[in-house]
């Protein structure tokens, strides 16, 4: 019987992190921006069928970058978690903090225990009744949970996008301004024009009633950016 090679844990973790980062860097980014009535999520996505942004619950949404099958599994698990909780207790008891924690636990477990870490990064957005109640939770491939404020970007070019947005962001924009702001950040970083049918966009908007999630179509984005 041959003994397996000894690999020091530092090396093991480093290798896995590198592997995951490489996978994520290949994917296109997603931006979330807070505006006066809620939060806008904007992604560059030429596919109409495979979404990166999705509804989780009344005031909660999900966005994922990286390997589609991996973040799709997490999106589905999140909807199940939220619907079970809302059905068992009350609709107002479903909160992003507990879901973000659960995602963080799951991703951390996958990172350390499974053969291959997930090559994804996800964002959980929650809109409160008023602007201060809004949360943007970012969960990385290793389960690291970060709470962002105002705007954030995940995916391959998150650093460049964040730097660009930091320069230009101002609180209290309306939706049209937020679409322009996020679109310009993408184009500044990509250094090219992005066509109106290459966007995937959705909002969580306080004026939408109980279910705040709404997808934006190409016309709406074009109108806002023209």
């Amino acid at each position, binding site marked *: 019987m041959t003994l397996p090679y000894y690999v020091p844990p530092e090396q093991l973790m480093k290798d896995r992190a590198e592997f995951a980062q490489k996978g994520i860097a290949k994917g296109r980014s997603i931006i979330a921006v807070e505006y006066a009535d809620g939060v806008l999520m904007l992604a560059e996505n030429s596919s109409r069928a495979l979404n990166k942004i999705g509804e989780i619950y009344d005031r909660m949404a999900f966005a994922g970058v990286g390997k589609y099958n991996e973040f799709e599994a997490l999106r589905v*698990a999140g909807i*199940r*978690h939220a*619907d*079970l909780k809302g059905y*068992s207790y009350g609709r107002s008891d479903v909160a992003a903090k507990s879901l973000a924690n*659960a995602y963080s636990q*799951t991703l951390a*477990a996958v990172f350390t225990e499974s053969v291959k870490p997930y090559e994804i990064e996800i964002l959980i957005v929650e809109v409160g009744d008023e602007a201060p109640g809004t949360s943007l939770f970012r969960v990385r491939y290793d389960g690291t949970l970060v709470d962002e404020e105002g705007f954030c970007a995940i995916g391959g070019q998150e650093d460049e996008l964040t730097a660009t947005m930091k320069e230009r962001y101002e609180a209290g924009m309306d939706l049209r301004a937020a679409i322009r702001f996020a679109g310009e950040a993408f184009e500044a970083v990509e250094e090219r024009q992005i066509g109106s049918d290459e966007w995937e966009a959705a909002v969580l908007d306080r004026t939408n009633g109980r279910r705040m999630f709404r997808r934006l179509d190409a016309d709406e984005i074009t109108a806002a950016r023209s």
Partner: protein
Amino acid sequence: MSLDLPSGLPLNQPAPDASFFGLLRSHDLQPTWELGPADAQTLRAPEATTILALRYADGVVMVGDRRATEGHTIAHRRMQKVYPADGFSAVAIAGTAGLAMEMVKLFQTELEHYEKLEGARLSLEGKANHLARMVRQQLPMVFQGLVVVPLFCGYDEAESVGRLYTYDVVGGRYEEDDYSASGSGGREAKAYLRSVYRESLSEEEALIQGVAAIAAAAEQDTATGGPDLRREIYSTAVMVNRDGYSEVPEERVAELSRDLVGESE
């Protein structure tokens, strides 16, 4: 029913497709009742009474009274019997109130769950069939005398038409092309609607006749709550049409109810 929740996000459980009930069952959280025939003899649960729905030119109007009874006494005066099922359909309940309300809640969650997972709403036919299955699952309770009979209506976005479905106690599903009513005052309400119904009713006329039919049923049936001007309790009325589900403001129903009472004096 236990309230234990999974704390993490189980990724590897067998996926119960897009069904919320399947999910509940896989966590052993589905509503269950264990009741022997002897218990049922002594069990007295509030009953939800009269509901009705009628199709008009562009959609469906659904109206329900507000009374729940327990034997010969009034259990609740302000019960809600007509609910939104999702953005394009509505459900009304008659029968054992507690079970019926739970069924509505499960049905609403089920439709929303499917819509979020699949990224598209169930077809109207699909929703109606699912509700039939939920009624059928109540069958063991029916033998204990705990009956739930819903009415379901919605706007068929594919065919651009409002549709109305009725159910029997064993989960039989029937599509109606005019009107229907259920619950203790259902017979009287139907008799009233029979005399006034036309296919070409406008939305306004359909609403007026729906509210009037409940009032007519309350004249004969003690379990049906008519307009209560003193306590300001009026029927619940909702509409489903091209623009989706909408509730008729209580003010409007109150106004119609006052007109009715004024007429009969």
